[in-house]
């Protein structure tokens, strides 16, 4: 399944809905998308991963890169994910301590305020 990306703005937050597979093949597209957003002045990102079917360490690297980019502008990056198979890779690597992870976009929006 290919990567799908859609973006909407909620106040000063930008919500990126990601679907499909984030792997070594598709991760560069996500990276470019995040770079474009940050370059365009979007420093508070919420990445909705509820429709992500697969995430590997390359995808994690892109998310970490996104986090570093927004932090360099005093921004934030929150994740939305309830799928255990996706959350598992965050737990294995310890990155649950790095990313705020929420159950819904609304919860992430509220937390990000």
């Amino acid at each position, binding site marked *: 399944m290919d990567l799908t990306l859609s973006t909407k703005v909620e106040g000063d937050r930008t919500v990126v809905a990601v679907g499909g597979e984030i792997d*070594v093949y598709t991760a560069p597209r996500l990276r470019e998308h995040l770079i474009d957003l940050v370059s365009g002045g979007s420093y508070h990102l919420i990445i909705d991963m509820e429709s992500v079917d697969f995430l590997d360490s390359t995808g994690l690297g892109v998310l970490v890169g996104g986090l570093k980019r927004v932090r360099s502008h005093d921004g934030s990056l929150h994740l939305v994910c309830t799928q255990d198979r996706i959350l598992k890779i965050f737990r294995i*690597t*310890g990155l649950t301590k790095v990313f705020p992870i929420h159950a819904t976009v609304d919860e992430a929006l509220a937390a990000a305020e």
Partner: protein
Amino acid sequence: MATVDVSFTPLPAHVRTARLVALAMARRIGVAEDTLDEVRLAVGEACSRAVGVHAVRAPGTPVTMRLSDDDGCFTVEVTDAGVLEDDLETEIGALDASRLSAVVGPEGPLDALPPGFGLVVIGGLVEQVDVRCDESGTHVTMTWPAPGPIDLTRD
């Protein structure tokens, strides 16, 4: 012992193909349904790592993956042309606080996780994993229980 050998040009697009082949064989020989996601992710990590190694060391040389069904086990061995020192500065295991802060800190490359990060994921997913290096390259071998093919004729 039944084996399937896959050899692919070290390009990111082919990692997905390798994952699908491994998943199909795992399912056919009866690897537990709730383990299939782990197989898919671990095989993807091993193949992604191999593709990355070949991009630096042997761009024209295929990555090989051997799938075996033997003695109630499903074994996947991914072999690349690298040497273990390429990426084994990270031990196979969860990252501790100091490593985590190094990963997400402002220093270092923006998008690249440290070498060996894929092996960290594999180590966290797979109970039986072996990583070794010899003159032919680095071998990442992962094994899962596989009780046998599903009997489709049974009621």
